[in-house]
């Protein structure tokens, strides 16, 4: 089916989220819709799925103008959404999840389990989406859960499939498998819309690329000829340098040393297995690995948020294994946490308050128990300007900031402290290209000032862009230590998958 959007305009109080958006998605083709956070991608998809009514413009499927009053209308017209955050019931089996809401019945209220299972199996075979209908959703990996979501929309008769940031939660191997699924769906004539801000993926898989910025279509690109730099420039509206320029590192003394650090869970299974590592002044050490291989625990062991079972953590030569997070902070450790909204900031607090979230307790931000509001405001004003947090209004709440600006706020808080060690976990996850570029520059600048940096990232591109040395984590262990200039993403990828040890 061919989908056409013509002149879609959607206004919210104070914001023109979509401005005269026109685009075409063709049958058997993949249209990649790219843009920064806040470019209007989500609004456009909500219009398409019947959640929002456009203020102007029309949706046309195979030459017929459609009017969606609710998401049900969109589904009946053949549009299926696969959301970034899966809408699955973890304690239900695969087939139960798939038929939820459209259950085949034997009589009123009596579930036809046999038919339901069969329908699921049929679709899974027809489209090559291998999945066991009887396993619990909570027991299967994220990549398979995504297949369940795809089967769900196919069962509901979708011919136009919309994927919202589908690879954000997948491992590199799962991404490859996912691309295989897309190719299969394509070959069966499905119309696919692929929303992403990962330019490489758009180039790899799309037949057409449409770029959104500030709610408008700012350009189309042919993936056969376009480059990532060109797309990034279109997305951001200015020239973007995707390569981080940095000189050879000049490592000094070891600032952070871990020696045989082991952390066991409540059942005595190792989350961290005898980890030893060093981070020197003036170098960036990147920790690569697929999500969930102990990186979170490693960071929390270093910052004191989780207790270490065995082994020692030394900072500036001192044993800090049993020190509290507060004492480590005041001893000179900065920490950009991996989960921005959950840990790194408080959404209901003002930007000013978030900027002193972990340093409020000391001078100059407080004297005794009295907070120094004036000092906090002045510092906050400086920081939002210096770190380019937009809008630069320190009385706004943290939750009013976009992902990229919230991350810049957190980076501002942690990087403005002149301390010897900075731990950054997923420093650029889910943020726009412009902010990524900025944060990467700040990280390299810290290194050149002679600070020690430990960067944990699941993005191989980021690891390679920043690291002087690369450590690969797999199953709670460090399985490889490589000099960034002597290795390749392929080699690191193999270690990440645990295939070479």
């Amino acid at each position, binding site marked *: 089916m061919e989908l056409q959007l013509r002149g879609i305009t959607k206004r919210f109080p*104070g914001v023109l989220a979509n401005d005269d958006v026109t685009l075409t998605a063709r049958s058997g083709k993949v249209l990649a819709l790219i843009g920064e956070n806040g470019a209007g991608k989500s609004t456009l998809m909500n219009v398409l799925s019947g959640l929002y009514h456009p203020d102007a413009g029309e949706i046309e499927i195979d030459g017929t103008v459609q009017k969606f009053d609710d998401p049900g209308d969109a589904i009946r017209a053949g549009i299926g959404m696969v959301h970034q955050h899966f809408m699955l019931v973890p304690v239900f089996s695969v087939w139960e999840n798939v038929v939820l809401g459209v259950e085949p019945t034997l009589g009123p209220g009596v579930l036809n389990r046999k038919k339901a299972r069969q329908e699921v199996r049929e679709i899974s075979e027809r489209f090559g989406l291998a999945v066991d209908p009887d396993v619990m959703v909570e027991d299967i990996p994220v990549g398979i859960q995504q297949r369940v979501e795809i089967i769900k929309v196919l069962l509901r008769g979708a011919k136009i499939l919309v994927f919202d940031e589908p690879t954000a939660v997948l491992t590199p191997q799962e991404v490859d498998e996912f691309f295989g699924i897309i190719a299969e769906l394509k070959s069966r004539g499905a119309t696919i819309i692929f929303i992403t801000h990962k330019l490489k993926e758009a180039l790899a898989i799309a037949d057409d690329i449409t770029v959104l910025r500030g709610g408008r279509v700012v350009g189309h690109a042919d993936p056969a000829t376009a480059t990532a730099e060109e797309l990034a420039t279109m997305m951001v509206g200015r020239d973007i340098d995707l390569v981080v320029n940095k000189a050879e590192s000049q490592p000094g003394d070891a600032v952070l040393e871990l020696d045989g650090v082991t952390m066991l869970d409540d059942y005595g299974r190792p989350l961290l297995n005898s980890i030893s590592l060093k981070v020197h002044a003036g170098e960036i050490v990147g920790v690569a690995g697929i999500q969930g291989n102990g990186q979170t625990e490693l960071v929390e062991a270093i910052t004191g948020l989780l207790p270490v079972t065995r082994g020692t953590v030394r900072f500036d030569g001192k044993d800090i294994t049993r020190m509290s997070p507060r004492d480590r902070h005041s001893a000179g450790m900065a920490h950009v946490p991996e989960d921005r909204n959950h840990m790194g*900031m408080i959404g209901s607090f003002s930007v000013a308050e978030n900027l002193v979230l972990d340093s409020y307790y000391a001078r100059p931000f407080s004297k005794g128990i009295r*907070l120094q509001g004036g000092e906090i405001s002045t510092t906050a004003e400086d920081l939002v300007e210096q770190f380019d947090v937009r809008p630069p209004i320190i009385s706004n709440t943290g939750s009013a900031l976009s992902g990229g600006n919230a991350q810049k706020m957190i980076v501002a808080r942690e990087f403005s402290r002149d301390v010897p060690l900075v731990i950054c976990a997923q420093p650029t996850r889910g943020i726009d290209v412009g902010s990524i570029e900025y944060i990467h520059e700040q990280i390299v600048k810290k290194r050149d000032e002679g600070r020690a940096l430990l960067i944990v990232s699941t993005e191989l591109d980021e690891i390679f862009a920043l690291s002087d040395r690369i450590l690969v984590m797999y199953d709670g262990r460090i399985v490889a230590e490589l000099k960034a200039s002597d290795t390749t993403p392929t080699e690191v990828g193999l270690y990440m998958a645990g295939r070479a040890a």
Partner: protein
Amino acid sequence: MSLTSPDGKTTIEPDDSGWGTFVRRLSTSADWKTGLVIPALAVLTALIIGAVIIMLTGSSLQETLQAYWALLEGSVGSLRAISATLTEATPLILTGLSVAIAFRAGLFNIGGEGQVLIGGMTAVLVGFSFAGLPWFIHMPLAVIAGFVGGGLWGFVPGFLKAKTGAHEVIVTIMMNYIAIYLVGYLLKSSLFQREGRNDPISKNVEASAALPKLLAWFDSAMRVHLGLFVALAAAVAVWWLLFRTTTGFEFRAVGANPHAARYAGMSVTKVYVLVMIIAGGLAGLAGGGQVLGVLDRASPGFSAGLGFDGISVALLGRSNPFGVVAAALLFGGLNAGGQNMQATANVGIDLVSVIQALIIIFVAAPALIGAIYRVKTDASSTQISQGWSS
């Protein structure tokens, strides 16, 4: 970069955690709406429904209006009415602050009732002991004893939450029962029971410990007492603590996002214990104020639901210390006026409870008010406490 998100959330959220003064906060448009307009409309709607209820019981429109006139007269119609309103409001300010400060730290203090009782008992104990002390020592000592007793009763659930994860809602409810029966026992013990009495009633507090009646020189029926100023001072102190100190910063951080608080090096368990001591202490002050300023002695059930009414007051006052004062004055006025309404207009004082309950329903469900009056409500700003499960 005003295009931060497609839903247009670029405005200042009506949370009073900012740096401006109270007045400045009230003057921002978003705050007017959620801070005052919604509660005001909630009160109006509750009064209208209350009127319908009066009429359903067989009263004419004229009688209904007369009943409301009596309600108004009984709350602000005369100096004596105002005195009654302030007397009723005094303990509500304190129990409201107790619930509010715990809310801010993410805890639901249902234990105000028990804390009022224990605080009242310790205050009355100090109040009838130490005869002969000068008033300027005895009175503050008795008031502080109320804070200490309530604080002790608040410490227990705070400590259990911090050490074992026991949910404070369960523990504070149970602590209420323990307090009720403990008070019943103590009032029959030789330490508390008045000589020559068989019923559970305590000795009278010494004159040197009693909170002086502010207007008794003018009219002996006016019962408003010095506790009012204690309550107002407590409101200012709670505001200062919450918004001007590192301790309050920690309270609010833990209440808003305990994970981020822990990341920032705060001790979440220390906050739980400390805030429950303060919350219990504030409720204890309310109990102390009642026995030292109004009742002169303790008897079973002298808490009279103050701890539970504190939840409503905190909710209506949006856990803002000054909002709590305003809400307590409103509830105090309804209580005082309700007595006048019952006496002169033949409408039962139970109607006041109905109106108070309706106000709380509308404040807790601002979408209802939004639908009735077509004003925009921000649902996210009305969350005052974390869910049961957290």
